[in-house]
């Protein structure tokens, strides 16, 4: 009953006119970002982070969250109609979605993806509503050693799952920790790595870093790759799936939801990975796997459901433990901290309006997205026809001004340009940016918990191994590192001593 009452309280917050408006705005921008290739939700959220400084924290998070799960909805449109994923989590939707469009079933593909997303998103939210409070209560038992070990595990798991090379991903995590320490040390009061630049005393800003790494560097890469946007010339009709479509897709939606929900909670999982896994599982479960790749409706329903369920469940570790599961959540963590709110187990007791308000807004946002995505599909298709040369200067200017407007500082813009060059080179050399951003956001917290734990134990590292939760996290970290080393050595031995045919 308590849960129900709290949810009602959340709806009281989410239904305030300002919050409703920003929820709608977030969903609208998210859909737009999802539809347009070349700008992902991370870039859009970092672009709009400065705009949230003037609004209440709960309103800011409602809008930013709306962008994230809105992008998951919108991403399917380009995948189905143009065969180009609007964002990374919609890559698998291209495979069968585009084939369905070619067979004149674009409407059914778009419809099942919107309904699947809605069902998965709503079921994910129900799971989140039930799971989050007990997890937050459990997390109250966590002390500095547990938090330190948990954060280390999060960074290692993310590096393991997202990177092409574990070494390069871990290097980026270390670099992120170093960049996170720039500025004044809150304990000793001494300045670190500022080199006399006064503007760096407060540290490197989250917005210049993320905009540089994700915003502008993506545009630079788009400049090199000419995106061919031939929209498939088909009339989009019959958006409501038929009974036959529902029969074929129902288990795919449910399986996709469960897979997405579980992978979304785990560090490094998130929407992208879950859509790939859901597609693979669906193909394996199917009695006719040969239909996959040739326009199977399950091939659209499963990944779209999975990425939406993951987009919702990823909020659980953020809101209950203060631990972001992926780079978008790291950005939201940064946004909460910028607004003076500390995410974690105490969020539920200290800021219940934020906790339940954000959850309730997601229920509303899911309904808004269904309304936005189905009747307005024609408008989104028209948007795809805007030539990239028109959009690129606008996005560039928004990045520059967004970075500048936080503190009216040109140093922030120059820093963004530096990270933009670094981000571009990183993408070229396959160094992953997500571990860098996660470590940058978590760096100051890792430092605080690490130092606190050591001071508490009088310099003994045993404190990390004698407490059960901390020990479990470190064992998981060690297993992941060991498996990565074994796999690298195995590949290397095969390279040096190839098997005789």
């Amino acid at each position, binding site marked *: 009953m308590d849960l129900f009452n709290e949810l009602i309280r959340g709806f009281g917050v989410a239904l305030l006119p300002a919050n409703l408006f920003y929820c709608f705005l977030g969903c609208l921008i998210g859909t737009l970002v999802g539809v347009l290739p070349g700008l992902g939700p991370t870039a859009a959220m970092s672009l709009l982070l400065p705009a949230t400084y003037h609004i209440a924290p709960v309103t800011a998070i409602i809008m930013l969250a709306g962008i994230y799960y809105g992008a998951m909805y919108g991403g399917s449109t380009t995948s189905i109609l143009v065969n180009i994923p609007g964002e990374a989590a919609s890559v698998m939707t291209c495979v069968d979605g585009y084939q369905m469009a070619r067979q004149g079933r674009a409407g059914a593909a778009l419809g099942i993806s919107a309904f699947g997303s809605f069902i998965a998103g709503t079921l994910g939210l129900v799971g989140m509503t039930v799971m989050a409070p007990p997890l937050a209560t459990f997390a109250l038992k966590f002390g500095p050693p547990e938090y330190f070990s948990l954060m280390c595990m999060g960074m290692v798991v993310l590096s393991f799952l997202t990177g092409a090379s574990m070494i390069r991903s871990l290097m980026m995590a270390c670099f992120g920790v170093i960049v996170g320490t720039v500025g004044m040390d809150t304990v000793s009061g001494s300045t670190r790595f500022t080199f006399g630049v006064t503007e760096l005393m407060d540290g490197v800003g989250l917005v210049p870093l993320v905009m540089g790494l994700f915003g502008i560097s993506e545009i630079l890469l788009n*400049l090199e790759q000419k995106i061919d946007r031939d929209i498939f010339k088909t009339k989009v009709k019959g958006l409501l799936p038929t009974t036959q479509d529902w029969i074929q897709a129902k288990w795919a939606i449910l399986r996709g939801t469960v897979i997405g929900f579980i992978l979304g909670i785990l560090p490094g999982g998130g929407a992208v990975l879950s859509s790939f896994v859901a597609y693979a599982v669906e193909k394996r479960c199917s009695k006719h796997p040969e239909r996959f790749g040739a326009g199977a409706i399950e091939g659209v329903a499963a990944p779209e459901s999975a990425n939406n369920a993951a987009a919702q469940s990823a909020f659980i570790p953020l809101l209950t433990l203060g631990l972001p599961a992926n780079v978008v959540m790291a950005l939201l963590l940064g946004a909460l901290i910028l607004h003076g709110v500390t995410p974690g187990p105490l969020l539920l007791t200290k800021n219940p309006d934020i906790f339940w308000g954000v959850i309730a807004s997601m229920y509303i946002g899911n309904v808004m997205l269904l309304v936005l995505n189905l009747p307005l599909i024609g408008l989104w298709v028209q948007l795809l026809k805007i030539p990239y040369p028109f959009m690129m200067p606008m996005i560039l200017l928004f990045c520059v001004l967004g970075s500048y407007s936080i503190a009216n500082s040109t140093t922030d813009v120059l820093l963004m340009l530096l990270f933009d060059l670094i981000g571009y080179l990183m993408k070229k050399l396959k160094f992953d940016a997500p571990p860098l951003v996660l470590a940058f956001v978590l760096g100051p917290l890792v430092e605080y918990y690490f130092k606190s734990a050591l001071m508490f134990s009088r*310099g003994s590292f045993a404190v990390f191994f004698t407490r059960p939760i901390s020990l479990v996290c470190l064992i998981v970290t060690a297993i992941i590192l060991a498996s990565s080393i074994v796999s690298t050595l195995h590949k290397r031995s095969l390279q040096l001593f190839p098997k005789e045919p």
Partner: protein
Amino acid sequence: MKKAYLITYAVWIVFSCAAAAESWRLGFGSFVRPGPGFVPFLAAALLGLLAVVGLIQSVQEKSAGKKAEGFDSRDMLRILMLIAALAVYVLLWDFLGFLAATFLLLLLLYRAVEPLRWRTVLIASVLTLVGTYFMFSTLLGARLPAGHIWTYLMN
């Protein structure tokens, strides 16, 4: 690609050494009382160690014998020029002011990315300028520089 990685790992090794040295100077402290350089030193040391492992792996790797994948000198030059243009644009704000500097930048961007007709370039530049100015200055209250030159000319 092998050469590119060798250079990259070497740069990371130099960076990690510099970061570790600076962290040590800041004060490592002890395990009981960690200093301000404690965590950055450990992060820099680990970064250096990983870069050395990466360098060794790259040295051992058989060269594929093909051109560095994805590194086109013309593309690189374009990207560097774009970043330089954005840096110059920001540095020009104080002198030219936001409006004039942005108008020039937009003309350059609309014309350089894909040569559009001048009339289209002008219309797109003006519309983008008005839209962004309205959004950032009027709606978000950002203090955009007016430019010394206009103050000087007005007086």
